[in-house]
């Protein structure tokens, strides 16, 4: 039976995943310790599979585990699309990364990832939508308009107007388009 190390170091709740994996008959070791100790824990626990939130900063520590284990009897590798492109893609989508002892067959991993994908609380839906191209063109026109207004108001050249707008935006942690809109609004107000 495969032994699973479940790394629990992000706000995502892995509690339900743990229960579901145990119910499915897997041996699960829940790891909520310090990320820095991961290499030592992997050494002690000797898991066949390690599951970690794709967004966990601890992924870089796992990278060290992968490199250090290269010459050991049980090299640990990241489960990649070389093993099974479909499973890999599904896993990434649901936000779980899997590391396995080299040689474990993809089919044996499938049921684990199925459970993980069904149970891992996904926040993928919150991702920002890509901006539409027409919106981008509109933004460019608005920035040009504001620049022209500013050149008139401050009696300055194009280069100086851009610099003024950008500095204003950056010091307020805003995008250039936001400052452009403010200039346009102000200019309309003052007529």
């Amino acid at each position: 039976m495969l032994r699973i190390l479940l790394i629990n170091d992000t706000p995502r709740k892995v509690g339900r995943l743990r229960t579901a994996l145990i119910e499915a008959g897997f041996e699960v070791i829940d790891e909520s310790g310090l990320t820095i100790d991961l290499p030592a824990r992997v050494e002690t626990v000797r898991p066949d599979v390690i599951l970690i939130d794709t967004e966990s900063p601890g992924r870089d520590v796992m990278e060290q585990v992968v490199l250090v284990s290269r010459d050991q009897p049980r090299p640990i590798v990241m489960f990649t699309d070389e093993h099974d492109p479909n499973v890999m893609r599904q896993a990434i989508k649901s936000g779980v990364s899997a590391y396995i002892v080299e040689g474990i067959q993809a089919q044996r991993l499938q049921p684990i990832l199925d459970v993980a994908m069904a149970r891992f609380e996904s926040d993928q839906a919150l991702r920002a939508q890509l901006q539409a191209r027409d919106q981008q063109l509109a933004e460019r026109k608005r920035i040009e308009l504001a620049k022209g207004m500013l050149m008139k108001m401050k009696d300055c050249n194009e280069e100086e107007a851009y610099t003024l707008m950008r500095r204003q935006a950056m010091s307020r942690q805003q995008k250039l388009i936001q400052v452009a809109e403010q200039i346009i609004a102000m200019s309309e107000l003052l007529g």
Partner: protein
Amino acid sequence: MNDSVGNGPISNALAWVNGSDAPEKSTLDLGFMALSDCASLVVAATQGFAQPYGLTLNLKRQSSWANLRDKLVSGELDAAHSLYGLIYAVHLGIGGVAPTDMAVLMGLNQNGQSINLSRGLQQQGVVTPEALDRHVHQSRTKLTFAQTFPTGTHAMWLYYWLASQGIHPLQDVASVVVPPPQMLAHLQAGRIDGFCVGEPWSANAVAQDQGFTLATSQAIWPNHPEKVLGCTQAFVEQYPNTARVLVMAILEASRFIEQSIENRRSTAQLLSGREYLDAPLDCIEPRLLGAYDDGLGNHWQDPHALRFFAGGEVNLPYLSDGMWFMTQFRRWGLLRDDPDYLGVARQVQQLALYREAATALGLNAGDQDLRSSQLIDGKVWDGSDPSGYARSFRLHALADHANRQALR
């Protein structure tokens, strides 16, 4: 200084948009890690530097280098703020992913990383490299040093610096990976004794009075390569015009950052925002302006502080810069055989594309593909004999296949 800049290049560059050189892909997702040296990407994306080229840049902050790498390889990110060594590790198949042909579009910055020690070591009088050397060789307990990624720049600076002081980084001390935002907590708890990291995390340790800066990375190698704009080779082949105008937009943003002190200050303010570094301005601004405080009472204006442009000197993807990381992978046993150093670098470093972009902006992109530098141990690296250079160090972990067999 201002009059050399002008908006001329921007309007000339509009020709790309109308002609057949228009970008094949107009919306790009760019990955970055929350570090001060991601500045040119953030400024380019938020301050309208890409729009004149018909490009929209979406910034995607990443939680780990491993994740950034995986997304670059899978195509979820088009390009990213990357550790120099990370791009080469992926290309050579070292680490978690299968080897994938990678590309370095341009250098994003030089300098500005540092090695810091705990207050605990300071209390034991370990405030100089010599004292550290004595401590390491005389103390019974092994010190633990953290870096940020096994094949990353911080690991290489840490190893190089320790070795230059007579300390073997893989034998005399323990080396662990810690994500930058967690460095301070581990230092405070005594789980690590020192670390090598980018800003604002070193300045933060000093500001919190938890550590001090013992060596800057620019002291190891003045104007060393650091982060690059990385992508897959497939991206460059599929979208060559996009890649070129992306480089142009980021070059212009880099130039803007260094155009005046005011611009650097407002860059620091922008970076401190919640969506970018989400860190206090007083940890970002001083070192971004070159003002160092090492936490031991020394203050100085660093002549080789973090820089993004320097007339384009920073951005040329020299073949020798890429090769250097391969020589260090070899030195520390990450590569088991000598790669075709020059051949690989020629494949990865997009020199021709970079030169097209730089020339279109009226920048001098030089005709040198190699540069010569002297590092802290006195050795000169000019890219001429990479395999000899990789073997020339007294302290190393060269792992040849032959040696490995003998060890077993």
